[in-house]
């Protein structure tokens, strides 16, 4: 396949940035999207140009690093995949592909397609954990009976990889699907109950502090999430937050 790429180029956080057009040739439909980007970067490097900076690590849909907004959608046109799992067979010979970084005030661009998602880490640090003594006398997790449905739902929520596609897809740049998933994975389990009140209040407070927008329930986040995190998690977080606020 021969493709035209329109890619956001930005030298650094303070640079204004602009879209730059490139041509790539002889792209196999079996390549992943990131492999196609590798081909482009090889071409640019051979010409002495600055290669396009983009985040990637595991390249198997787990690390959540490959944050690209492709043809107007987070992680591209396929469903339930990250950018590294997106294959070039989703495109046709002669296509023009627009590639941008995930856009949100809370996700500032570092360079080209690389963004700073440390706002997510600060939200996690605000309450996305349970306090357990791990000095060697930790209780066996299987000793605590847990309802199967609750365990499965908590596991579903815990599959969130924090890639930020929810924020990128949301017209309001809301992080509520991410925070909802992180609240839910503990709220559904007995181990999470001890700190439940403070957790949801602190995580929501940090989310608001980071400058994410408000959720207006468009559902775009759920559709674009590579891990299929459900809107039920946002509803659960809303209930948890209301209950925590009543408790004081």
């Amino acid at each position, binding site marked *: 396949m021969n493709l035209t790429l329109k890619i956001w180029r930005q030298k650094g956080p303070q640079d204004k940035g602009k879209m730059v057009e490139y041509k790539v040739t002889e792209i196999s439909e079996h390549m992943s999207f990131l492999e196609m980007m590798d081909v482009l970067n090889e071409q640019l490097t051979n010409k002495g140009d600055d290669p396009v900076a983009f985040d990637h690590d595991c390249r198997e849909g787990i690390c959540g690093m490959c944050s690209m907004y492709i043809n107007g959608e987070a992680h591209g046109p396929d469903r339930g995949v990250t950018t590294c799992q997106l294959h070039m067979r989703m495109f046709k010979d002669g296509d023009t592909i627009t590639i941008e970084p995930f856009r949100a005030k809370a996700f500032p661009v570092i360079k080209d397609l690389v963004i700073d998602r440390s706002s997510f880490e600060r939200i996690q640090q605000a309450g996305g954990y349970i306090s357990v003594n791990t000095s060697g006398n930790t209780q066996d997790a299987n000793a605590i009976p847990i309802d199967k449905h609750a365990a499965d739902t908590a596991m579903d929520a815990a599959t969130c990889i924090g890639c930020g596609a929810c924020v990128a897809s949301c017209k309001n740049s809301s992080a509520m699907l991410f925070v909802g998933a992180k609240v839910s994975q503990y709220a559904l389990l007995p181990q999470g109950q001890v700190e439940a009140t403070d957790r949801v209040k602190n995580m929501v407070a940090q989310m608001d502090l980071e400058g994410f927008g*408000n959720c207006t329930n*468009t*559902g775009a986040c759920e559709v674009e999430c590579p891990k299929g995190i459900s809107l039920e998690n946002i509803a659960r977080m*809303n209930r948890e937050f209301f209950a925590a606020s009543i408790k004081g």
Partner: protein
Amino acid sequence: MSGFLNSSIGRKYTMALSAFFLMIFILQHFAINILSVLSPDTFNETSHFMGTNALIQYALQPVLLFGVIYHFVMGFILEIKNRNARAISYVKNNGAANSTWMSRNMIWSGGFILIFLIIHFLDFWFPEINTKYIQGDMSGLLADGEGYRYYEELTHKFEPIWRVALYCLGFVFLSLHLLHGFSSAFQSVGANNKYTKGLKGFGKAYAILIPLGFIFIALFHHFNH
């Protein structure tokens, strides 16, 4: 509790609660208005009761006004905050791939409803307040004293075609707003469960049938008077 009300989720809750109140009010408004088609006398009597009952006038009416103003003001505040959350827009954004037009354009449908509501208030609410509380005429009677004035006033308003067209357009926007807003309000208060699918279906029926009913009433009076 002030922390709750100033939080993003707290604002979602209060937007949803005001929406619930307004949706119940719209249903009640429609139930009374359809009486003007079915039985003008009953419409007159009900309108007079609603317009003179102390509980409705001095307790529920202020709550309604507060609900309307709060829903609009908070809607605009949240829209500004949400726009600020993304400093640079996407060059290419395919919103239609993951969400409905209605859900992405609540601010526009809401804005048109606000314009419609201002016209509606100028047409009906302000003259009503003037007659009752400025001129002090609580009788609800026509100038000649022959029966109640409410039905006459209603049918008179729907004589010009431009006003009928404007009202129909206003109800189309109300329908578009409700097509997302109805189920969205339930999600905002944390109600997402096994009943959600059914509730969404009911919400769609509500969002289409109630505005359609209002359109029917406007057209009925225009073509029959």
